[in-house]
């Protein structure tokens, strides 16, 4: 008697007989979980870069839209670097726009003598207000003053825990550049913190 391999009912339920609406609902739930996991870190990263909570929320929302529209169908294991890649791209857009606006405002200031309301990217921003002690303030201040690429590398590698390859994918640079940025970021942070002492 040949031994036919008959799939179990549970397997059938899990694959062929699964209602497409259930699949969509499961995918949406999984996507929702992922966005919940990364949104706060993404907001902090955007705050460091923009120095403004409002600007950071706008940039983060654009990043969420771009990620869901273009990458939601990718395997969940690839989501984190892709999300941060979109966020990084939106932050670069923001910096570019800000530079152009800054030039326009400078020209207007020359003409009218008015003050620009463009946030200073070097300003430590709202994170500092959350730090309870001097060490925390010093650390957040040092992070806020790092060059953008060094800070992003530090945050993605040390805080988000992406590996070198995923960080390189998120930042659209080589793995060697990630190592260089991280090394410089650590050196800068260490120096600033020792100066604080």
């Amino acid at each position, binding site marked *: 008697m040949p031994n036919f391999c008959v799939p179990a009912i549970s397997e059938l339920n899990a694959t062929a007989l699964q209602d497409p609406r259930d699949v969509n609902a499961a995918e949406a739930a999984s996507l929702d979980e992922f966005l919940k996991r990364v*949104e706060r870190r993404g*907001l902090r990263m955007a705050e460091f870069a923009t120095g403004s909570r409002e600007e950071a929320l706008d940039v983060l*929302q654009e990043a*969420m839209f*771009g*990620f869901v529209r273009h990458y939601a*169908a990718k395997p969940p294991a690839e989501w984190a670097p892709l999300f941060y890649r979109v966020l990084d791209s939106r932050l670069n857009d923001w910096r570019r726009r800000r530079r152009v606006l800054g030039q326009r405002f400078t020209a207007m200031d020359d003409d009218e003598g008015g003050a620009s309301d463009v946030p200073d990217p070097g300003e430590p921003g709202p994170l500092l207000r959350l730090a309870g002690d001097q060490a925390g303030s010093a*650390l*957040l201040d040092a992070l806020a003053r790092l060059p953008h690429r060094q800070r992003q590398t530090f945050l993605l590698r040390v805080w988000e825990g992406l590996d070198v390859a995923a960080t390189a994918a998120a930042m659209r640079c080589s793995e060697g550049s990630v190592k260089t940025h*991280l090394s410089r970021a650590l050196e800068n942070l260490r120096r600033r913190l020792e100066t604080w002492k």
Partner: protein
Amino acid sequence: MSGKPDNDPWISDARALLDASARQLDDATVARLARARRAALDLPRAPRWTARWRSWGLPLAGLAAACAILVALNPGHPRRADVGSGAQPPVASGVEIEAGASDEIIDLYQDLEFYAWLDVREDTGG
């Protein structure tokens, strides 16, 4: 440096501090994040076959195009019409391909998806 973060005590402090700062958000910010997330989830999403095509089709098409370009530009490869006709093989075509160039081309094509997305976004002003 290996690219692995150092084990300095301040690095774990930094991590803890950043985690705390991410937890300590006011209600208005949390509500705004939730609204942004729901709005993002309501957006139309690319179907899975599109993602598969983007994952495999575009890089493969790019690789095929890169190979075709390399073959077309290869100065050391005699053309069929030249073989046996007594014509001299081409000595210098003025086009040189460096040893590392093929990797760059492959990387470029692997990034096509991202550049295509950027183009679409810029076209739509999004």
